[in-house]
């Protein structure tokens, strides 16, 4: 609930500051490429995210596939399906978006060297999602700029065996940590 309140607040703020509107029509399906860089802000602090989503825009609806790099907590590569709805056909227009998919681990050397990731432990891929609202500025016929804010979630599990000094001690117990990482996702980029 608090996330909805935060996002609503953000959108109201944006609406009061950005309100120039010019008609922009998309009568036939058109290829669109959305490329963004952004900030993921959560309990661990801020981290960078980079994304590229490519798909088709038709009658105010955009559907595409995206991939990126997410540096929050540890580097992961989200691969997801994206859907967004533009609320009008003006040049400057609000939109709502939703992304869902999987994120794959791509640990940096620094992350691999940390004592947290012990030998024989394994980090597993997990669910990824991002949803929010944004505002696009531009004609839609060439590159247009956009900013968005939303709530992004990535789930990561890390499994490892308990240490047993002798094999006769019995089967090694297993431990699985499931991390649910929520972040505010602020993105800015260009739509081609």
């Amino acid at each position, binding site marked *: 609930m*608090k*996330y909805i*309140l*935060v*996002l609503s*607040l*953000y959108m109201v*703020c*944006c609406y*009061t*500051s*950005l309100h120039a509107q010019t008609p922009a029509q998309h009568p036939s399906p058109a290829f669109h490429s959305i490329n963004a860089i952004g*900030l993921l*802000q*959560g*309990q*661990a*602090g*801020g*981290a*960078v995210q980079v994304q590229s989503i490519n798909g088709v825009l038709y009658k105010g609806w955009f559907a595409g596939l995206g991939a990126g790099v997410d*540096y*929050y*907590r*540890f*580097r992961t590569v989200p691969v997801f399906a994206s859907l967004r709805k533009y609320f009008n056909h003006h040049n400057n227009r609000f939109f709502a978006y939703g992304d869902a998919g999987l994120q794959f681990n791509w640990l*940096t050397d*620094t*992350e691999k060297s*940390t004592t*947290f990731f*012990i*030998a*024989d432990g394994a980090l597993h891929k997990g669910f990824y999602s991002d949803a929010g609202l944004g505002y696009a500025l531009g004609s839609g016929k060439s590159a247009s700029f956009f*900013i968005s*804010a939303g*709530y992004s979630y990535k789930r990561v599990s890390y499994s490892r*065996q308990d*240490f*047993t*000094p*002798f*094999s*006769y001690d*019995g*089967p*090694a*117990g*297993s*431990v*699985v*940590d*499931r*991390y*649910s*990482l*929520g*972040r*505010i996702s*602020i993105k800015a980029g260009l739509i081609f």
Partner: protein
Amino acid sequence: MKKNILTTWQPALCLALVLFFSSCIKDNCRRTYRIYTPVYENISTLRQQVKSSAVAPVANTGKLYINGQWIFLNEVNKGIHVIDNSQPTHPVKTSFIKIPGNIDMYVRNNTLYADLYSDLVAADISNPKNISVSKFLPDIFPQRAVYMRPGGGMDSTEVITGWTTRDTSIDCAADLSRLPCPNCQYMDIYAAQSSVPAVVKSSGVAGSMARFAAVDNYLYAVTTADLNIVDISNAPMPRFVKRQSIGWDIETIFPYNNKLFIGAGSSMRVYSLQDPQNPVQASFNGHWCSRDPVIVDGNYAYVTLHDADGCNVKINQLEVYNLSMGSTPVLVNTYPLTRPQGLSKDGNLLFICDDGLKIYDVKDPGNAQLLSHTKLSDSYDAIAYNNILYMVTKDGLYQYSYQDPAKPTLLSKLLK
């Protein structure tokens, strides 16, 4: 003009406001532990279960022992498959010797020696379809017995025969502070908060993963910390001689030239058998924490190291030691491997279970040459004997002819 300044700064103020509220968002962690609870059984009940039975499916392969035309394949913690291998292209399972808790074995003069949890059992296997136990030696492998039950006081009659499992979850949010976030370095403003007819009569060949070895009239059996010495001069009636401490994390034993080569978790130890009842450590070679069977031929010892639980280093390699340069083995060369397990040697050929089967020419041990690599999954131990390479994998037992080591020929496979 005043209105324009407000309009310009409003998105930035909105962003700051949203970031401020991000402090409401917390990362969560749920930790699930799989807990194993032991199932106890009385060992006298288990002793009564030792008998021959009809052939059983190969399910969980363990160690391997070759005795003439017979193959003895351990079914971990259940017993031993007896396989007639008179035709290597058509091995035939003859019977299954049920021995609860069995992992290791040794055969001499129709007598099988095997572990039954904490016992050493001696059995006449001249008729593998109807074996007869001649003796149980209790308390040879004390690590596999449970003498103290919780709240039950001293009780030497029970062993752990199985485990029940259950999962339990707890909140581990407190460990989040240990979770690294090397990339969260920007705007970190809130982080601070946060397994027949008469069997042959001679001794056979054991694999490199064996914990049993015999030299003359003595059977040597290692536990994780001790060397047990058993007099088998009267084969059906073994007699426990003594137990001596030889260190920690002991894994394998290999007899050669009146010496015992012991493979341990972080070392290779050599014991002299000048006095067979009182082995004396002749040398000690420490190495990286890893799991390491050892075999010896001529003046060289071959040790494979693989990473394992409990070791913070990942070492996967073959080490070759020269044993002729004084009392301490001298490392000659190391060869990187994938994750080696058992190994065997025949003439100038070295066979290593590593990502399947690798065959090396070790005419010059200091410059081993890889001749072939046959990919198989989870190969565990190998014995090269009479031009046949016997190899145990997680899937079962494979036999290869290595007349052409560069192109080993599959003779048969006995799978699950």
